[in-house]
């Protein structure tokens, strides 16, 4: 009951016209930076940070949070329309979103992305409201061995993305893991595989790799006649723009499951929205009735990662507000902002600043409604992009990719890197080496290696640490099951067949 009273109070705070305006600006701006290739929520929050200085802390954080979950939806727009992930959490959305667009179902994909995002976001806000302090205690039980187990679980999803030739898929993943080792070694501070360039010290950024392998490679390989996606005028009616009943039937269960996964993984510091969208996609593929069709354009392949990344963005607020521990790059900047406001995130925040916490929760309900209206109204507009003649679209997209990669670190080096990965992506596509495993492995690889080495230091070199701790042991158990599940399934099927015969 107390929670509901608090919520009503929070909604009244959020309904203040000034706060509503900040919320709307945040959501709008977030969608924009999310959709622009290269720029993600972290960049968006950093840019608008100075604007919040003049405001009171509540309005400020309402806007920054709006940018965060707005960007999670925005990223799906370019993923679906031009195969270029707008930010790292949207990479998985390209896998089925773009094939859907090629089939002429871009509108339904965009609509589903919006609904999935909003459902995922809203459920997460509810979970946040009731459970935040309790959940935070669970999040800190995740130490290095648990992260290692989680990364192994993430890697098992690669098995589902290897395409026509499994060996080539695994090579792609292994090379991705190798790319993750580039840069200064966290433990000893020595540069590895940087070829003397200081620009590689921080490692290969995920965004240039993803934009090159997906976005540029698509421009390079598409032939003008084959890639044209025509949207007929008569198709742009409201009913046809929204996901059909059948789409919902396929997606709904995945949305709920992915929301749970996303919220939970988002809560873990360091894992975040990108990894949660990977794992959700993998789980959706494993549990879907039409798992084999994933990657060829199924609607639940869009719904699952989109629900997941929005849920993760709310989940990341749990450790930030209750522990003062940022769960991702974006929340790290928000934490910095809170400190500039003179607030001190931590266990006492809920007691000392209830107006702040509940105002934020209230605003997230309202923000998600804004996001839905915005998304639905904008779908017909976005669809028009597909009617732009291919040469013009390619040229403009290319300029956005290059300027986006520049603004990542304000460095021309990243522009060169993006072009290089574009060329690599071209040859990979031609030779049937799938790109998704490489990108996935790159993201997981960094945490995989550090958590492995941290665990081994803690245990004094004893690998049993991964199995004796209950949480990491059970995650590893699930991973092993996930690897052998297809084999077992086959064995059972062949057994049943032999009995039938």
């Amino acid at each position: 009951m107390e929670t509901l009273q608090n919520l009503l109070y929070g909604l009244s705070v959020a309904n203040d016209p000034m706060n509503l305006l900040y919320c709307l600006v945040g959501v709008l701006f977030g969608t924009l930076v999310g959709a622009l290739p290269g720029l993600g929520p972290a960049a968006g929050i950093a840019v608008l940070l100075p604007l919040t200085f003049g405001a009171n802390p509540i309005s400020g954080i309402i806007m920054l949070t709006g940018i965060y979950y707005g960007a999670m939806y925005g990223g799906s727009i370019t993923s679906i329309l031009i195969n270029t992930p707008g930010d790292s959490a949207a990479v998985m959305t390209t896998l089925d979103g773009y094939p859907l667009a090629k089939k002429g179902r871009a509108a339904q994909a965009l609509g589903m992305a919006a609904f999935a995002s909003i459902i995922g976001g809203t459920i997460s806000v509810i979970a946040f409201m009731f459970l935040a302090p309790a959940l935070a205690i669970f999040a800190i039980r995740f130490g290095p061995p648990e992260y290692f187990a989680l990364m192994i679980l993430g890697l098992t999803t690669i098995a589902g993305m290897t395409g026509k030739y499994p060996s080539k898929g695994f090579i792609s993943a292994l090379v991705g893991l190798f790319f993750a080792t580039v840069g200064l070694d966290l433990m000893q501070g020595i540069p590895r595989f940087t070829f003397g360039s200081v620009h590689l010290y921080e490692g290969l950024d995920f965004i240039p790799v993803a934009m090159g392998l997906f976005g540029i490679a698509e421009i390079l390989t598409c032939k003008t006649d084959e890639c044209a996606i025509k949207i007929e005028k008569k198709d742009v009616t409201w009913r046809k723009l929204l996901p059909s009943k059948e789409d919902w039937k396929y997606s709904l269960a995945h949305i709920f499951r992915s929301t749970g996964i996303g919220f939970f993984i988002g809560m873990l510091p360091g894992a975040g929205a990108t990894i949660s969208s990977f794992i959700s996609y993998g789980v959706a593929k494993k549990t879907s009735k039409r798992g084999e069709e994933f990657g060829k354009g199924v609607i639940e392949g869009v719904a699952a990662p989109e629900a997941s990344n929005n849920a993760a963005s709310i989940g990341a607020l749990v450790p930030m507000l209750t522990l003062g521990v940022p769960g991702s790059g974006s929340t790290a900047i928000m934490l910095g902002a809170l400190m500039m406001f003179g607030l001190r995130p931590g266990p006492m925040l809920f007691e000392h600043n209830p107006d702040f916490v509940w105002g934020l929760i209230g605003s997230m309900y309202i923000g998600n409604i804004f996001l839905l209206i915005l998304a639905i109204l904008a779908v017909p507009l976005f669809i028009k992009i597909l009617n732009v003649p291919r040469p013009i679209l390619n040229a403009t997209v290319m300029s956005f990719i290059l300027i986006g990669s520049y603004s990542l670190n304000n460095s021309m080096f990243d522009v060169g890197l993006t072009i290089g990965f574009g060329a690599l992506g071209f040859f990979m596509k031609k030779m049937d080496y799938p790109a998704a495993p490489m990108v996935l492995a790159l993201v997981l690889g960094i945490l995989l290696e550090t958590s492995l080495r941290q665990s081994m230091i803690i245990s004094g070199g004893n690998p049993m640490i991964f199995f004796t701790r209950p949480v990491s042991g059970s995650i590893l158990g699930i991973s092993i099951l996930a690897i052998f599940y297809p084999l077992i399934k086959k064995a059972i099927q062949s057994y049943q067949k032999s009995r039938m015969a």
Partner: protein
Amino acid sequence: MKRNTRWMAMVMACLFALTTVVGCSGKADAPQAQANYPEKPFEMIVPMGAGGGSDVFIRTLTKVIADNKLSPKPIVVVNKPGGSGSIGWSYVANDHKGDPYELSTVSSSFYTGPLSGQSPVSYKDFTHIIALCVDPNLLLVSADSKYQTLAELLADAKANPEKISAAGSSGLSVDAITFYSLQEKSDTKMKYVPFGGGGEVMTAIMGQHTTFGFLGPSEAAAQIEAGKLRPLAVTTEKRVSGELKDIPTLKELGYDIVMAQTRGIVAPSGLSADNVKYLEDMFAKAAATPEWKKFVADNFMEETIMMSEEFTKESETMSTMFEKYLSVVGK
């Protein structure tokens, strides 16, 4: 209709382009005339990503300057992360030598970078403008830990080598150096576990994945207040003030280790004395404002104003100290 919109767009585009050209033509002039310095906006390079300690420090400082109108021209903050800061610092020191409009800030990798061969520029390539405060470092355990004092913890470490583990940010940092010198001075054998940043270190301490860990007071204060973390020692020369005044220093406890990060403003080498004086004054005025003092106090930093000359000497001392400890660490 369609024709009309296209027309409008063209006209808009031309107008936009025109204003751009006019707006930018004034900025191209070289900064020669000293008398009316500053005559264009300053660029403040934060060589780290947004949201970190250096970023919050700089953004708050520039906000204080803007709010109090202490600079006639705006200070534009630009993040140039990468290479543990070396990309940003070499941009300032190498690419803008003698340019009084390029400013930056210092952190521990400002000193460790050139020493370990990661950075092409060292403190010698900069004009030191002003140091504003030092960031102490805390040694903490979880509130559930059985160790009430540092003495207890180190006694256990002595009795059981390789049992106690510590969490800190990266293997080449103030945390690591403090750890290794503590290990050396207490004649113990412990395990240092490097993490990616303060948030991860906090999780490791609170979840008791490691026995103890290192955090800045601004990161740890909320948890200390809520009784989730227990501070055992602080790395400053004297005890910090305010809420954290009960924490003993390592020196008091018998380990002569002082390791705190100075925060200040630097510019490329080759600035004229007038320019240095101007900048010194501007930042000193900012540091005297109540807003700045509140920020420093809220984040448990210790106000330590050092003008150009003193700051340069301090940098020399810091660099020698890091050099000494880095050879102890053996990396």
